[in-house]
């Protein structure tokens, strides 16, 4: 029998094994110490140099072939065993898994994030101030003297304090942070101020606490055209509308002159409000050029500096954007509501929407 005949016989034998035990028996038969290959190797010594060389080579090749075949067959048998074994491993895969509870971000926070993101791109930085304010910061510095009807535009909460203590109002708007910022920073100033605000007012469209975001730009050349352009850029971006129908109309705030309010057009279909087009108008913000008196009150020379300011209600923006109809729902801790109107933790507004 020649080695090449052996080759076929042996590989066939290997390939026909069904268990690791059989395979091991074959391995011992051919490769074991007293097996076929070692025996053949021992016989080589009696051959001539030439024959020894060629036969030796053949034997080595055969040995390699057997080793590889065994290795392959081993994997084959193991896999067959595994497949056999898992045939009985059936579970009811439709049973529910244990999910992590899903947290949510409140729509007011989400709206604040949106606002910060948009103004952040426009190079604004965020400033904050305390909720309990001085009369000076909340009113007087903003050109709202105590005996002026403009005070009555905002119903103020007063907090109890020690005698002669100055800070005793709950800020009625975020504007006192304008004053704080101007008093401590030299222009150029470019800030937004989101935060809690308070007015003694409670009905279906007013809650005694609400949120505003304030904007202030002070430099040597900011104009009303810049103000108008800034707000349009913001509103388009915020409401995701390319063609925003808006109205920029004169109004009055003691701390700005000229003053304006901005309305956006909307349509209401099946109780869903669509912003940006239509014949109805919704007021969304107040704004104007900083009143020179306010600059003076904050130690900024109105002969050199000028600027603009704007303010808007975060609740109103949230409600318009997310279709929330009852303002008071925002402050009720109703889990079903929070789950419904809340946002996923990773719902981060980026241009790429990653």
């Amino acid at each position, binding site marked *: 029998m020649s080695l090449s005949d052996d080759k076929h016989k042996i590989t066939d034998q290997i390939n026909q094994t069904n268990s690791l035990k059989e395979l091991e028996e074959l391995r011992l038969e051919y490769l074991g110490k007293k097996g076929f290959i070692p025996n053949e190797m021992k016989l080589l010594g009696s051959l001539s140099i030439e024959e020894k060389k060629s036969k030796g080579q053949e034997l080595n090749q055969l040995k390699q072939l057997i080793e590889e075949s065994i290795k392959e067959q081993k994997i084959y048998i193991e896999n067959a065993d595994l497949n056999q074994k898992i045939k009985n491993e059936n579970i009811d895969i439709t049973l*529910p898994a*244990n999910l*992590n*509870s899903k*947290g949510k*971000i*409140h729509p*007011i*926070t989400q709206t*604040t*994030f949106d606002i910060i993101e948009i*103004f*952040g791109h*426009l*190079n604004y*930085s*965020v400033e*904050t101030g*305390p*909720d*309990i304010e001085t009369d000076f910061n909340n009113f007087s510095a903003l050109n709202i003297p105590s*005996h002026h009807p*403009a005070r009555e535009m905002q119903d103020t*909460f007063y*907090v*109890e*304090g020690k005698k002669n203590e100055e*800070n005793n109002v709950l800020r009625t708007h975020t504007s006192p942070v304008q004053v704080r910022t101007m008093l401590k920073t030299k222009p150029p100033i470019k800030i937004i101020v989101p935060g*809690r605000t308070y007015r*003694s*007012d*409670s009905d279906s469209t007013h*809650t*005694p*606490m609400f949120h505003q975001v304030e904007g202030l730009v002070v430099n040597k050349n900011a*104009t*009303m*055209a*810049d103000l*108008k352009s800034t707000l349009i850029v913001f509103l388009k971006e915020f409401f995701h509308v390319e063609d925003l129908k808006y*109205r*920029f109309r*004169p*109004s*009055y705030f003691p701390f700005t*002159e*000229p003053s*304006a*309010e901005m309305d956006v057009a909307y349509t209401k279909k099946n109780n869903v409000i669509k912003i940006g087009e239509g014949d109805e108008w919704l007021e969304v913000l107040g704004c104007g050029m900083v009143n020179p008196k306010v600059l003076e009150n904050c130690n900024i020379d109105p002969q050199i500096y*000028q600027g603009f300011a704007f303010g808007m209600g975060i609740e109103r923006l949230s409600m318009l954007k997310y279709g929330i109809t009852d303002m008071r729902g925002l*402050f009720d*801790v*109703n*889990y*079903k509501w*929070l*789950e419904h109107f*809340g946002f996923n*933790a990773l719902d*981060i507004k980026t241009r790429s929407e990653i």
Partner: protein
Amino acid sequence: MKFTFSWLKDHLDTKADLNQITNTLTNIGLEIENVEDKSVDYGNFTVAKVISAEKHPDADRLKVCKVQTQAGTFQVVCGAPNARSGMMGIFAPENSFIPGTGIHLKKSKIRGVESCGMLVSEREMGLSDEHDGIIEVQDKYKIGEKFIKVFNLDDPIIEINITPNRSDCLSVRGIARDLAAAGLGKLKELKVKKISNSFSSPMKWKKNFKKDEEFICPGVAGRFFKNLKNGPSPAWLQQRLKAIGLRPISALVDITNYITYDLGRPLHVYDADKINGDLTMRLAKNKEKCLTLDEVNYECTDDMVVIADEKQLHGIGGVMGGLESGCSLDTTNVFLEVALFDPVSVTKTGRKLKLQSDARYRFERGLDSESINWGVEVASMMINDLCGGECSEVVTTEIYKMSSKKIKFNSNKIFTLGGIKIRAHDQISILESLGFNVTKDKDNLNIIVPSFRSDIEGEADIVEEILRIYGFEKIPLTNIHKDEEKRNVLDSNLKSFYKIRRLLANNGYLEAVTYSFMDEKKAKIITKDLIGIQNPISADLNVMRPSNFPNLLESVNLNKSKMYFSGKLFEVGPIFDNSYKNKQQNIATSIAFGLSDEYNWLSNKKNVDVFEAKKDLFSILIDLNVPVNNLQYEAINNNVYHPGKSSSLRIGKNIIAKFGELHPVLLKSLDITIPVVGFEIFIDSLEQFKIKKSSTKSAFDTNPYQMVERDFAFLFSKSIKASDIVTKIKKIDKNIINKVTIFDVYEGDKLPSDKKSIALRVLLQPQEKTFTEEEIEIISNQVIDLVTTGFDAILRK
């Protein structure tokens, strides 16, 4: 401010329609609040004649009427007792909307008889509550005449929201002036017919103020009218007053109200027979009483301007006249008051007395400083016209004359502040149409402000005047995306303030936003040192919250009924205390209660515990860059946390966080019967752990030597704290002791009652070469020695 379209046309010569007027008003800053145009809802209703009225064959109370209308004759079934043949009524055709009942009228059969349209009652027309019969109109009206014409409802009512600066527009004339300036017509000349005097006034006006208080009442003028007749005012005047919501009283009273709205000039008429001697403007004495027209006896203070005769007070200056000297239908002799008052003084008085009036509303916003003279003339003319009688000369005190305000205005300011170019010529014509007097001097405009514009103070105001009339919509847009220095959007403190919300939500917590105030009764459990609100919106929102827990906890029971038996919630916001900087600090507060996982077949059916809160807290702190291994534990002793199941966490002096099971006393006060765990993160103390902006990471540790682990179990006294044991072991060598894990804690029957067993796994990292058995042995012994001697512990085999 309310007025009617026809009233406006008294002052404005215009061809503009209602729509143009209202659009323009909004565009120039006089924001439309409401327009009531009855021709829209009521246009269908017309005068009709009942030709016949027969009894309904099947109903005693109903009548079948033939009604002749402009569109033909219709059969109408009607239940009104006054429906009768020959009467004239108001007909509502089929398919019209009945405003008083909100019904769309359909052709129908009433008890088998067809009825087309309806004869309406006053209630159905929304005119009154009258529903006993149908409206009857006089025979002089023709069939087909419009209902709104017959009832004078065809004059649209316009209501605008006047901002506090525009006192000049608290008059129809002021509004007309603005509209004329905006190009919607021409302001008509104010025609005042001078009434000549025929006798000398028996009464005088006096002022009694200290020299430095003269400004409180710059002047007052009056006039005596005798032998007049005070009856009801004419229909046109009554209609106008009714249209704006005022009740007609008598000619004299109606005249004062009319001039208030028409020209913005409040004035007062006294029944001269009820006055003793002259009238004097002066400051009140403390506690002096004044009974005013609203029939309230007000107690004055010595900073209020009052009007007095020799015996008593007859009015509160700029606010309200006295009851006793008020005019009645019997009044025949009248003394007039046309005065000016300091706006601040009127505001203070009105607020102190909590007394609002149309007069106060105008005086506190500032009147035309020239209005005394023309006010007397206009009032005289109307009194004379409507009440007849004779008239004295004008009597007046010294009138403190205000000099006109002058503003030097650089016409380029429109561009530098407004961002729009408007020719100086156009600027001037706008200002002139608004009543300003302007002269040009190169780029500068020398402007004299009209006496009725007390709100105009400087260049910025002039810019606004020009721009609002020129049109805010014409301001061009600019490119705001100019390159400039990049700023940090958020400082590190604010970054934590906002980022912490994402982290909490990512750990399964729902964000809530609740009021910063709460009920004092509930807050008292937390601290005695509360910040109260002087004028709370309601009694249960009367203090600033000293903690966020109560507001979050209140939701537990509320949501139970909605089948939420477990929850994880948080709020980020301020809490208040007098001892904090600015009286507040920002805190992230969370609560968790109920099952720790979903209730299903896999659930461990265990309630959340302190370690669940601790797990969430620590993973959040790690994300906020807090070195959690350096946190020191400190016991909490208050009514917020369970004293035995809570801790505050410090680094140095700063409290970083507190966590634990909430105090049963706190929970009980809110009727919560299940355990709740929670934590608070003190955001203001996180600033020290800035979130690094740099993306570079520190070098990677490539130590190749095999790590080894060894387990130990010790018996400790129960009072020993696990963190102390771990810290001590780590101190052996912080490089070699890579990690100490507590993998088992046992307390119970098999141990003495004051003992616990703790099993530790220590992971060792060789530094220079792989450890030999001996080296491991040495370290193990070190661990055992340290723990047994340091904590009086016993090694368990």
